[in-house]
Structures are given as C-alpha cells and as structure tokens.
C-alpha cells in the first residue's frame, strides 16, 4: 500500500547548517495492516508521517501510494489524493472550535471530490455513530472531553473511508484510561473500513497493539 524507497529529508539548522532528518529510508507497509513508528523526540518520525501524508515532500527518493508514484504530482493532484486516500488524526485534535462535532466531521467532505449534501449527511452521521458520538453531533469541541474530541477527529479521518489512516501521537494529550479507549477505537474503526493504519507514537504499549513496529533512530530504522 505504502512504499518508500531511499527517502532523504534535511532541514536548515539554527546556525544555517543542514540537518539530516531522514536518511535513506525505505519501507513497505502492506494494505490493511497496522504499523507503529516508534522513536524519541527529534528522531524524524513526524517528518516521516508528513511525507507519508503528502503534507511534505522528500529531498530525494520515491514514494508510492497504492502503486502510484507521488513525487512528481501537482498540488491539485496531491490535494485530491489526500482527500480520497488519506485520513489524519493528530495529537492536538485540530478541531475547529466554532463548529459542532457534526460540522467538524463534515469539513473532511468539503474539499476534494464533491459529495452531495444528502450523502454527506449520512456519511457524517454514520462516522460519528461508529465512534460512539451519535448523541453529540451538535456539541462544540469545548463542550466535549479530550477523549470525545479525539473521537470526533477519528470520525473526521474515517468519514471518506480512506485507504490509509495516519495518526501522529493520537493519545499524547489524553490520560491513560482514555488513551486505551481511543487507540482501541482507532484501530478497530480503521480495520472495519479496511484502512491501513500508520501511527507515530513514543509509547511502546501503544506500539504493541499494531501489527508491526518500526523504530526510528536519528532518521534511520533501528529495527523492524
């Protein structure tokens, strides 16, 4: 499903020097599986997730999603791929505070390939129902607990039934109990929709819940 080949990425450091963040990184993640990327802060895992999510581009190397090479695609084509193939869950939830839970989930259907209004409604309600928030559709983020907010974010990530769900520290802002529930929900819901899930985490216990763990140390794989 996802195939990275010799990916390199570097940034300008504070003194103007080049800092290699990802070094000749290759990996193949099969469709329908779950994978965790473990690593310390600064190991390059978020950069890798950004490249996997087409939010950033590598300096060199190739990246295939479902067999399609994406490095040469235009902004419009990349945006379309993000909308149709990818779903994102973030540590900070990224819910729009002035919108209700329903409207936040609906945001994912407002861009990319258009979805008719009636179909949109059923997709949003179905997605919210799947994460157990059918009775919270009109609630604003501030009226929801942290766990509920992350469930809204998961509903938003899954509403288009993407082929890939990318999660960046999805439990980083949650307590232990809630983390457990959210991870279970994320993995179950993604699997129910047949999505490949790649999760960045620093928590080994969360990583153990996935099919495969990739350990990133200073931009390179430590072990698979």
């Amino acid at each position, binding site marked *: 499903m996802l195939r990275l080949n010799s990916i390199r990425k570097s940034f300008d450091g504070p003194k103007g020097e080049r800092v290699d963040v990802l070094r000749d990184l290759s990996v193949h993640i099969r469709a329908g599986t779950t994978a965790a990327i473990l690593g310390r802060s600064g190991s390059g895992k978020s950069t890798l997730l950004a490249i996997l999510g087409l939010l950033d581009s590598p300096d060199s190397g190739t990246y295939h999603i479902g067999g399609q090479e994406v490095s040469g695609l235009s902004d419009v084509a990349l945006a379309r791929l993000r909308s149709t193939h990818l779903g994102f869950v973030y540590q900070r939830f990224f819910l729009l505070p002035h919108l209700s839970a329903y409207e936040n989930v609906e945001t*994912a259907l407002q861009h990319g390939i258009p979805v008719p209004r009636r179909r949109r409604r059923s997709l949003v309600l179905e997605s919210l129902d799947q994460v157990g928030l059918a009775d919270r559709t009109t609630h604003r983020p501030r009226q929801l607990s942290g766990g509920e907010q992350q469930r809204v974010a998961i509903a938003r990530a899954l509403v288009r039934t993407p082929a890939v769900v990318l999660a960046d520290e999805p439990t980083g802002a949650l307590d232990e109990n809630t983390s457990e529930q959210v991870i279970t929900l994320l993995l179950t819901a993604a699997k129910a929709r047949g999505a490949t899930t790649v999760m960045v985490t620093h928590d080994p216990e969360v990583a153990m819940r996935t099919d495969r763990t990739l350990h990133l140390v200073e931009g390179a794989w430590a072990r698979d």
Partner: protein
Amino acid sequence: MSARELRARGGRALLACLSLVIGIIAVIFVQATAGVARAELIHLAELRQGRDGSATVSVSGDALGSQTSRLLASKSNTGADVALFVSDSGATLSGGPSTIPIIAFEGDVMAVRPFDLIAGHWPTATTAGSGMVVNKVAWEQIAGGSGLLWKAGKGDLARHTPVTAVIDDGEQDPRAYLPWRELAAHAQPIAESSVRVLVRVPSGDAARSVEWLRWHASVDQLPMQGTIEPVNAAAGVDDQLRIVTAAFLGVGLIMLLVGVLGVLNIGLATLKERADELALRRSLGATKGDIMVLVLAESVLIGCAGSLVAVLLAVAMYRPLVAAALSGSTDVPFPLSAAIYGVIVGGLAGAAGGLIPALRAARTPIAAVMRA
C-alpha cells in the same frame, strides 16, 4: 462556509468591515452628488442659455416685425420651437426701490428656455396683454406690489401693469418679461436694439437646430450679428464637473485605500490565528487555490457587508446633507446607481485587501503547522 468562518471571527471581521465603510461612503457620495450637481448645473445653464440642443444667434432689432414673424411662423411647418428675446428694449419697470429692465419676448419661450414657474402662469397668445412676468429677484424687490409702472425708452408712456407670474430664470439680477407685441403697441421699437433668437428642433440635436436656423435666417434674410452658436449646456457642465469630480473621487479613493489597508492588516493578523484551520483544510484535501478562494471570498464578503452599511448610512445622510445643499430641496431621491456602484466598489476593495492574505494563506506550511 465563508460566512460561518467570518461569524467565528466576528470582532476582527467587524473591524475590517468598518475600516472600509468611510471610504465607501465617500465614493458613494461623490458618485451620487456628481449626478445631482450635474443635473442642477445643466438646469441652471439651460435657464440662462436655453435648452440643450438649441441654436442661438443675435439679429439686429431692425428685423423685429415682419422678418421675425416669418421666422416664428416657420414652426407650424417644421415643429421647431422658436423664441425671441429683446434684452435692451430700453423699457423698464418701476414701483420698487429701483428700476427693473424689461425683456421683451415673443414665441415659445418656455419650450426653448425652461424657466421655473414659481407662481402664476406664463402669458400665452390669449393672455398676452393682461400682465407681466418677473423673476424672483425682481419679485423680492417690488415686494409683490401692484400698480407697477413701466415705461418704454425715453418716452413718458406709463402703464399700470399687474404681475401675472413669478419665475426663476437663473439670473441674480432683477428682470421683468413682457410680450414684445404689447411693448410695441405702446412704444416705438428701438432700432439699435438687438434680438436674441433661440431655436430648438424637435430632435433636440444642436447641429440640426443650427442648420434649421441658418436656413431660415437665409430665407428670411435676417440681419445676423455674429454667428449661429449651438447651445451645449451638458457639455459645458461636464467640462466644469470633470476636474471637481476627479478631485473629490481622488479624496474618496484615498479614504478607501486606507480602508483596504485596514482589511489587509486585519487579514494578515488573522492568518496567524487561522494557521491551524488552514493547515487542517489543506490536509483534508483543499488545494492552494481552494484556500486562496476561501480567504478572498471572506474579504469580498467583508467588503460587501461594509458597502451595505455604507449605502444605508449614505441614504440616511444623503437628503439632509447633500441634496439640500446642492439643490435646496430634500425631495431628491438617492440615485440607485450610486448604491450599486458602492456595493461593487466595496466588493473590489474587499478583494484588494484580501489578496495578499489569500496568497500567504495558500502558502501555509502544512507540515510545520501540524507538527507544532
């Protein structure tokens, strides 16, 4: 979507909207007053010079009588309106604090010089001989007196004449108007006097009026003094107004520019707090173009909202301030074209103020924002 986003940032959106209002009002007022001022100035010019599209020439006073009668009779064949004015008839009106010059006339005066009738009625062929017309300056001078005396030339002939009508002829000096035939019946026409002939063909085309007058002057052998001139009141007024309007419009546009800078400033300030939202939308599949359109649409909405507020304020202020000052009447409707112009200008100002924020929004570094 844009309206909802705007509501979410109500305070900033309101500030941006208000920053445009003054500039848009200024532009609307310039547009609206230019129309009223033009109409007023054209009307004033027509009162003094004759209706737009007329032709005029001076002829010797010798022509008064059979030659001018033939000219006036030509109307029945061609439909052209013809009137004669003898300004230096030598006749005067007395009875007030000073003597008032009497202008003798003949023909379709109101058709070629649309005097504003303030009271009474303009003498027609049937009413001629029953009185005199005075302008409002003369009326104020004679204080509505009756038993006024008029005398022609150096003669001692005097007549008691009632005033049958008061008009506004656009003049600042007192004037009285008397049918020439009535004047001629009681005094010898003065040979040195000159007659101003004013002609207007039904089409209102000044060039045709000139041609008409030239042809009839030739046929009737009118002793012309000078050349035939077209009356182009509107063109003259437009020349006068062009510079004034441009100056006022310039001031209005500077005020509008300040408003645009306000929208730009607020738009840029808002981008920082919207970074999360914009990056999120990009991650959900919005293209750079979508983000640009989103931000630009919000600015245009702000501009349109500002222009609606400006139009409402302009309509409320228009009658008491502008219309009354320009025309002396509050019964002047607010021109719809100025309102439409204001909304268009507001939308464009919003778009101009939102362009740079929109370009910057499209370049939001998604990965950096999502990682932060």
